[in-house]
C-alpha cells in the first residue's frame, strides 16, 4: 500500500543489528525483524518515535528537512517549538535564542506563543462550553496520539477537539500577515517549524484534519542546535519576545490542561499510559471528565525524540522562563476574532479524521473469523514468552504474521530448542 504516505521515522539499515529493542516498545506493533534487520510496517507506524529513543545503535532515525530548503522561498519564517527555550542554560534568554535563530538566515522568527495562546483561549472560553461536544474532549495537539486513535481507538475520533495545533495556527497567522505587510505572494513565503517531534514532521507532509499545512518544512532541533549555539553571543538588536506564561508551560505534560483553568481534567503522558487511559474512555468510564490532555512523549513535548536536552532539565528551565513573563491577556474582542477564525475554518480541523483498520486480519468477516481460528490454533503451540527472537513482537503477532502470509520463513527458536532438548534425552 504505497499511497505516498511518507514517514518521518526511518531505519538506517547499516546501523541495525537486528536486536529486538524496538519491537517491544512499538505501541502499534509496527516493527518486525526480518533477515536480521528491523522493518517498519508503514500502514501501522504513527511516527511516535519510541523506537528512535530506545535503539541502542541509533539505527532508528528521523527524516526532517534541512536549511537548504529555504532557497526555494523569497521570504523565510522560522517558528521554533516552545520546547526550544528549555534546550539552553537558564542564563540564555528567550530573546537571545530567538535572535540567534534569526541569524541563521531567516527573515523573521515568529513565536509559537501565538498559536498556543489562541488554542488555550478558544478551548477554555468557547469549545468547553459549546453544545454538542463529546466528552471527555481530547487535545488535538499531539499528532502521534491522533494517529494512535485512528488505529486503535477509532470510536474516540469524535472526542478530538477540532482545533488546529499551535504551530499550524501560528503559521497561518504569520504567513497571511507577512503576505499582506510585505506584499509577497503567499507561495513565496516559507515557514519552517523547528521541531522536537517526529510525528509533527509527518503531519506537515501528510496532514490530518486539514487539506494542506501552512508549514513548509520541519527542521529537527537536534540538527539546528549547533547553528543556534554558534549564533549566540552578540547581544545587539535582540528580538523582543512576546512569550506568555501559559505558552511556555504548554510543552510540559499537564501544561495545556492546567492553563485551561479547569479542575476536571486528566493529563496523561507517555504513549503506553495514554493507551491505558484511552481504553477506559472507550469503555465509557470517563464521560464525567471534561478534558484529557494526552501526549505521546513522557514529560510532554519536552520529551520529544528530536530534542537535545533531557526532559527533566528542560522542564526546570521552562518553568524558570515562565516565571519571568506575564500571563496571557485577551479581550472579548480578541475572543470574538478567534471564534470567527475557528468557525470560518481558518484554524479548525475541517476535514474528517478517518479510522484506519490496519489491525484487521481480512476485509471479509468470514475469512477474518477463519484466520482468527488459525491464529488461536497456532498460538496453542507457541511458548507465549513474547521473546521477539522470531522477529515478531509477541507470540500472537508471530501467529498473525503466519496467517496473513507475511512471514513465510517463520521459526520459533524456543520451540526449536525444546525440540533439540527432547531429542537429546
Amino acid at each position, binding site marked *: 500500500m504505497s499511497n505516498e504516505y511518507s514517514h518521518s521515522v526511518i531505519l538506517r539499515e547499516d546501523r541495525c543489528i537486528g536486536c529486538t529493542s524496538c519491537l517491544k516498545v512499538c505501541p502499534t506493533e509496527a516493527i518486525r525483524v526480518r533477515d536480521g534487520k528491523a522493518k517498519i510496517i508503514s500502514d501501522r507506524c504513527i511516527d511516535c518515535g519510541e523506537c528512535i529513543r530506545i535503539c541502542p545503535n541509533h539505527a532508528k532515525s528521523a527524516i526532517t528537512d534541512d536549511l537548504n530548503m529555504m532557497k526555494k522561498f523569497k521570504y523565510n519564517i522560522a517558528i521554533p517549538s516552545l520546547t526550544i527555550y528549555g534546550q539552553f542554560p537558564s542564563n540564555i534568554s528567550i530573546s537571545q535564542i530567538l535572535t540567534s535563530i534569526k541569524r541563521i538566515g531567516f527573515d523573521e522568527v515568529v513565536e509559537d506563543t501565538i498559536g498556543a495562546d489562541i488554542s488555550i483561549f478558544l478551548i477554555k472560553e468557547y469549545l468547553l462550553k459549546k453544545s454538542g461536544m463529546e466528552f471527555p474532549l481530547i487535545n488535538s495537539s499531539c499528532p502521534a496520539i491522533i494517529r494512535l486513535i485512528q488505529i486503535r481507538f477509532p470510536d474516540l475520533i469524535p472526542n478530538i477537539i477540532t482545533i488546529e495545533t499551535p504551530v499550524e495556527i501560528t503559521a497561518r497567522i504569520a504567513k497571511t500577515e507577512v503576505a499582506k505587510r510585505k506584499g509577497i505572494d503567499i507561495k513565496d513565503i516559507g515557514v519552517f517549524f523547528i521541531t522536537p517531534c517526529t510525528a509533527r514532521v509527518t503531519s506537515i507532509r501528510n496532514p490530518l484534519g486539514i487539506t494542506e499545512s501552512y508549514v513548509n518544512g520541519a527542521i529537527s532541533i537536534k540538527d539546528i542546535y549547533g547553528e543556534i549555539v554558534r549564533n549566540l553571543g552578540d547581544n545587539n538588536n535582540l528580538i523582543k519576545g512576546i512569550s506568555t506564561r501559559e505558552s511556555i508551560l504548554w510543552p510540559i505534560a499537564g501544561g495545556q490542561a492546567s492553563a485551561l483553568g479547569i479542575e476536571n481534567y486528566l493529563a496523561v503522558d507517555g504513549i503506553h499510559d495514554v493507551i491505558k487511559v484511552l481504553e477506559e474512555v*472507550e*469503555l465509557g468510564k470517563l464521560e464525567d471528565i471534561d478534558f484529557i490532555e494526552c501526549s505521546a512523549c513522557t514529560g510532554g513535548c519536552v520529551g520529544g525524540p528530536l530534542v537535545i536536552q533531557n526532559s527533566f532539565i528542560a522542564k526546570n528551565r521552562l518553568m524558570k522562563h515562565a516565571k519571568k513573563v506575564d500571563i496571557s491577556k485577551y479581550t472579548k474582542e480578541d475572543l470574538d476574532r478567534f471564534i470567527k477564525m475557528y468557525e470560518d475554518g481558518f484554524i479548525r480541523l475541517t476535514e474528517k479524521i478517518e479510522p484506519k483498520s490496519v489491525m484487521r486480519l481480512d476485509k471479509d*468477516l468470514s475469512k477474518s*473469523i477463519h484466520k*482468527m481460528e488459525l491464529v488461536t490454533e497456532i498460538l496453542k503451540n507457541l511458548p507465549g514468552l513474547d521473546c521477539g527472537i522470531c522477529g515478531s513482537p509477541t507470540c500472537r503477532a508471530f501467529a498473525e504474521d503466519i496467517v496473513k502470509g507475511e512471514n513465510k520463513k517463520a521459526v520459533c527458536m524456543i520451540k526449536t530448542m525444546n525440540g533439540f532438548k527432547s531429542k537429546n534425552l
Partner: protein
Amino acid sequence: MGNISYNFPIEKDDFERAGEASSKIKKILRQLGMDSSIIRRVAIGAYEAEMNLVIHSLGGTIGITIDPESIIITAEDTGPGIENVQLAMKEGYSTAPDRIREMGFGAGMGLPNMKKCSDSFDIESIVGKGTKIVMKMMLKDGD
C-alpha cells in the same frame, strides 16, 4: 458457518485483573475488522458482566462466540445467585457492599447497561447455584 469462541475465567474479588477479559475481547473484534459501534457495545456488555462476576459472584467465566451474523456473550458463575432478578434489573438497584461502592463500582447500572447494549438479553438465576447471562448482538442490524 464458521464461528469462533473464547472463554475467560474470572475470579471473585480479582480487581487487579478485572477488565482484562473485556479488553482482550475488544482487541479480537478489532482484528476481525468489526464496526466500531458494535465493538463498543460488546466491550461495554462484556465489561459490565466481568465486573459483576468480580464483585458479586463466587467466580465464573465470560464466553464469547462470534460468527458472521452475531456475537453472543455468556457470563456464567457458580453462585450465589440473585434473589430477585426483576429488582436487580432496575436501574440504580445494587446489593454491592460499601467497600465496593467506595471504589466507584456498584452503581446499580450493571445489568441494565448489559441489557441496553444487547439485541437480546437473557438472565437465569438460581439462588445457591449461580447466574447465567446471555447477551446477543446482531452484526447486520443497521451498522
